[in-house]
C-alpha cells in the first residue's frame, strides 16, 4: 500500500534483479516498514504527551509563533486554533489536547535521510530521474551507460508500474539493474529504494540512477535520498509543462531538454520552455540533448562529473 498518495492501495510491489532473475515481493516488507514507522511515531508522540504536561507554556509559545505567521488567514479554522490554546492552558476538563507536531511525510523523509547517508558513506552519486512517460529517461540512461562505461560504474533502479522491459533494456546496455514494479503506485518511495539498493549492491564510488515512475506530480513530494532530481522534458511535449507542474520543476536541479533532433519537425519553442523552467526555478540548469543522436550529451556528462565530485566532497563532511 502506498499509504501516502492512495494510488497503490492493495497493490503488489515487487523488485526484480534483472541480472540474477531474483524476485522480491515488497508489499509485505513495505507494510512492515510502515508499521514500524508508526511504532516510532507512537513513542515520539508519547514523549510529546508528557512534555506537554510539563512544558505546555513552551508549546503555547510555539503555537503563538505560528499564529504570528498565520495572521493573514484569520478565518474560522484559525479561531479554532486559538480556542485550543486556551483550552489547554486554562481548562483541561474540555478535553486533553496532545501536541503531535507530526509531519505527514515524516516517515518517508526519515527513510530518505537513511538512504542519503548510505550513499554518502560509499561516495555514491545518486540521482532521481523524473519525467512524463515517454520523455526518454530510459534511452538517456542506455546511452549514458554505453558512453561512460570506461569512466564510472553505473547502476540503475528502474521504477515502473508494471513490466521489466526497461530493466532489461538497461541490462542490455551493460549496467546492473533492479526493476521495481509499483503495481498501481504512481511514484517510488524511499523504502522501495532502500530495498532495491540491498539487491542492487552498488559499489563505492559508483553512480546510482533511480528512474522514477513516469509522472510529473507525485514524485515531487517524495524524497528518495538522491543528491539531485533530474527532470527530463522532451520537445514532443508542450513548452508550458514547467508551469503546469511547477512542483516538479521547482524541485529539480537540472532540466534535460531531450529529443532536440526532432526540433525541425515539431512546433516547440526552446527559449520559451527554458524561460518557463526558470520562472518556476531560477536556479535550474538546462541541458539540451538528443539521447538518440548524441547531440549535447557532453554537457550532460560534464554535469555528471561535477556531481560525482560534489558527492565525493560531501561524503567527507
Amino acid at each position: 500500500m502506498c499509504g501516502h498518495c492512495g494510488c497503490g492501495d492493495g497493490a503488489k510491489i515487487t523488485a526484480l534483479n534483472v541480472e540474477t532473475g531474483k524476485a522480491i515481493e515488497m508489499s509485505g516488507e513495505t507494510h512492515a516498514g510502515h508499521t514500524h514507522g508508526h511504532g516510532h511515531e507512537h513513542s515520539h508522540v508519547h514523549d510529546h504527551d508528557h512534555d506537554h504536561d510539563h512544558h505546555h507554556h513552551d508549546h503555547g509559545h510555539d503555537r503563538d509563533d505560528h499564529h504570528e505567521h498565520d495572521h493573514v488567514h484569520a478565518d474560522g479554522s484559525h479561531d479554532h486554533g486559538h480556542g485550543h490554546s486556551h483550552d489547554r492552558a486554562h481548562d483541561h476538563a474540555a478535553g486533553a489536547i496532545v501536541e503531535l507536531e507530526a509531519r505527514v511525510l515524516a516517515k518517508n523523509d526519515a527513510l530518505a535521510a537513511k538512504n542519503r547517508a548510505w550513499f554518502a558513506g560509499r561516495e555514491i552519486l545518486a540521482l532521481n530521474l523524473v519525467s512524463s512517460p515517454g520523455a526518454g529517461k530510459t534511452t538517456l540512461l542506455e546511452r549514458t551507460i554505453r558512453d561512460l562505461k570506461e569512466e564510472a560504474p553505473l547502476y540503475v533502479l528502474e521504477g515502473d508500474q508494471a513490466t521489466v522491459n526497461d530493466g532489461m533494456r538497461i541490462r542490455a546496455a551493460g549496467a546492473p539493474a533492479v526493476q521495481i514494479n509499483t503495481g498501481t503506485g504512481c511514484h517510488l518511495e524511499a523504502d522501495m529504494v532502500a530495498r532495491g539498493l540491498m539487491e542492487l549492491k552498488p559499489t563505492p564510488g559508483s553512480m546510482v540512477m533511480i528512474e522514477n515512475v513516469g509522472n510529473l506530480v507525485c514524485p515531487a513530494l517524495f524524497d528518495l535520498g538522491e543528491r539531485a532530481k533530474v527532470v527530463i522534458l522532451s520537445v514532443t511535449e508542450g513548452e508550458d509543462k514547467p508551469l503546469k507542474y511547477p512542483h516538479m520543476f521547482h524541485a529539480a536541479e537540472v532540466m534535460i531538454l531531450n529529443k532536440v533532433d526532432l526540433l525541425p519537425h515539431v512546433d516547440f519553442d526552446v527559449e520559451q520552455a527554458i524561460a518557463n523552467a526558470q520562472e518556476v526555478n531560477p536556479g535550474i540548469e538546462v541541458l539540451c540533448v538528443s539521447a538518440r543522436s548524441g547531440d549535447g550529451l557532453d554537457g550532460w556528462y560534464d554535469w555528471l562529473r561535477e556531481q560525482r565530485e560534489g558527492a565525493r566532497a560531501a561524503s567527507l563532511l
Partner: protein
Amino acid sequence: MHELGITRNIVAIVSDAAKGRRVRRVTLEVGALSGVMSEAIAFCFDMVSKGTVLEGADLDIREIEGRARCSSCGAEFPMDTLYAPCPCGSRQIERLQGEELKIKTMELEEAA
C-alpha cells in the same frame, strides 16, 4: 490526487497516537505551497476516518499562506504560487513558509 492517501496517513498517525482513545478534533497545518489541497483533505477525512477513533472528529485545517523574503531588496512578501517573484522584480528569494504539511494537535475526549 494524492490527498486521499495523505488523509489516510493522517488518520493512521493520529489513531496510533490516540491509543484507542476517541479523538474529538484534529488540527492540521497545510501550506498553500505544499502541493496538497486542503479542500481535498477535508473532503476525504469523513470517509477515511469512518470506523476509526477519529470518526466524527472535527478537522481544523489551518492554511499557512506562502511567504518569502527577497534576497535583493530584503522585503518580505506573500507568495501565491511556488514561483512568484518579489514585487521588486527579483526572483532571488528565500521561502519562509507555506510548504507545511503537518499534524499539529489532536484533542482527545475527556475520559482520557
